[in-house]
């Protein structure tokens, strides 16, 4: 063996490259990034809790016109739930219908484009929805307020109608339009995952298209739809600007959703009162934010849990 050959040999020894160091550093870097997410969520909770604690326990003057934290936040919670309920009641049938339209009824070549149109709705900033809702939709919905009061006025939720249409009802409709795209997107996805085999089995038995949808598609998609609805609910609970801009607020407890005297939702209340807040009131608002965070967290948690459970059950 010549000298050149042996020197080449030592140069090409297997242990020659210390590549491990780069690998290890990189693995640490990406691991740290992933942990940031964890710490951020914990930090959100901790910071809100630290700053909000004072807001839950300060002197009764802070809560004017109420005297305690519970008294202050109670009307807000009722309002938040009412607005979200209206949004869900309106948005659920629409999102299921639109999702079915895109997944099973629309002509194939257009389906993707139609899905994109619905996604565009999700891209409209909430402040623009608020502007449109407050300036246009409210006016157009005013007759609907009158009608609801005249025909369903015996229900406590349809009391004295607002003269300009700026009510919790209108806010709920705006919320419905805002949460419809995400609910549609999720329902559409699960509808499209229906096993072809089930659909064809139904059709082969002589089912009409609707019967196929009813007996093959909807049962398969049930938990996906529930999960989508909960995600929509999470959005509705936390949406701020649209409500803040549509609603004229009064801090009283009322079930009347078409009147002028509804309290704000938790989120809208924060946005509306932030500017004039004293440090104590700031803490109070942060405390209400903490409540909102916990509630939406639980709702989202439940939604993901339902979705995850159905995914496991289907073995995907």
């Amino acid at each position, binding site marked *: 063996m010549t000298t050149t050959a042996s020197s080449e040999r030592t140069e*090409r*020894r*297997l*242990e*020659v*490259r*210390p*590549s*491990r160091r780069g690998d290890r550093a990189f693995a640490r870097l990406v691991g740290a990034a992933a942990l940031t997410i964890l710490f951020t969520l914990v930090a959100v909770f901790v910071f809100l809790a630290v700053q909000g604690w004072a807001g839950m326990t300060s002197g009764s003057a802070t809560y004017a016109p109420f005297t305690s934290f519970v008294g202050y936040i109670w009307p807000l919670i009722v309002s938040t739930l009412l607005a979200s309920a209206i949004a869900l009641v309106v948005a659920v049938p629409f999102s299921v219908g639109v999702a079915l339209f895109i997944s099973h009824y629309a002509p194939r070549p257009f389906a993707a484009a139609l899905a994109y149109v619905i996604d565009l709705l999700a891209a409209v900033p909430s402040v623009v929805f608020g502007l449109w809702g407050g300036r246009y939709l409210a006016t157009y919905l005013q007759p609907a307020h009158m009608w609801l009061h005249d025909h369903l006025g015996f229900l406590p939720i349809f009391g004295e109608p607002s003269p300009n249409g700026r009510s919790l009802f209108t806010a709920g409709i705006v919320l419905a339009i805002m949460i419809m795209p995400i609910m549609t997107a999720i329902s559409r996805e699960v509808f499209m995952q229906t096993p072809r085999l089930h659909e064809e089995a139904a059709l082969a038995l002589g089912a009409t298209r609707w019967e196929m949808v009813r007996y093959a598609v909807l049962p398969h998609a049930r938990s996906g739809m529930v999960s989508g609805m909960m995600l929509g609910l999470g959005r509705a609970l936390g949406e701020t600007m649209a409500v803040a801009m549509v609603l004229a607020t009064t801090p009283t407890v009322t079930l009347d959703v078409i009147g002028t005297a509804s309290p704000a939702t938790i989120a809208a209340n924060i946005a509306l009162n932030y500017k004039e807040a004293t440090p104590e009131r700031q803490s109070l608002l942060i405390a209400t934010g903490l409540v909102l965070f916990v509630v939406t967290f639980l709702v989202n948690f439940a939604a993901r849990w339902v979705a995850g459970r159905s995914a496991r059950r289907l073995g995907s």
Partner: protein
Amino acid sequence: MAKSIDVSDLHIYYGDFLAVEGVNLTVKSRSVTAFIGPSGCGKSTMLRSLNRMHEVIPGARVEGKIVVDGQSLYDPSVDPVAVRRQIGMVFQRPNPFPTMSIYDNVLAGSRLNARRLKRSEADAIVESSLRRANLWSEVKDRLGRPGMGLSGGQQQRLCIARAIAVEPEVLLMDEPCSALDPISTSAIEDLIHELKTEYTIVIVTHNMQQAARVSDDTAFFNLKAAGQPGRLVEFNPTRKMFSTPDEPSTEAYISGRFG
């Protein structure tokens, strides 16, 4: 520069599952060794263990010894990344890097390791690798075009050029022709013939005629029964294997009476 490979008493596991059991064989330098056998018998796993590629799959591990040129591949001090630089691999489906040109694909081994090359050096490597892969005349006018634009057979030869550009000692080929048409297949087989004067080649194939055409030695792997680990049934010169095999099950498999 080509090296021989000694495999002794090799067991390969995926987690607790024993995939390949008790393999002993020697791959001679500057020759073509074919691994044949039914699907799922562990021949691809075996091939991958030769350059530690199976470690990419989580839970995979190896017991036993593989020695290349006096160095044990599984010695704790050995870096798998360095092993792969010397024992190159060509895959079942051609997989040129889609973001790179033909030129950059050939140089990928150096470029990805951020090795600085002079322009003239790089040109020389690209030309000689493509020539050795019998692809130079077809692509020399469009080296800047994306590698994905070539035909399947050309892509596979590009992948071979990429593998030999890092000057490995050994070339492992995992069913390199199974995704190709007959004409491209014959081009690759010719290429294997030429490459064996410089490299030690191990090829996994499902195609018995191909094994007979290109290889000097053949190893036949089989499962004892369904769910059992794969094992080496017979290892002999190809000529003998295809005329008078030692084992009846080899003959059954080769002649198509499989089972």
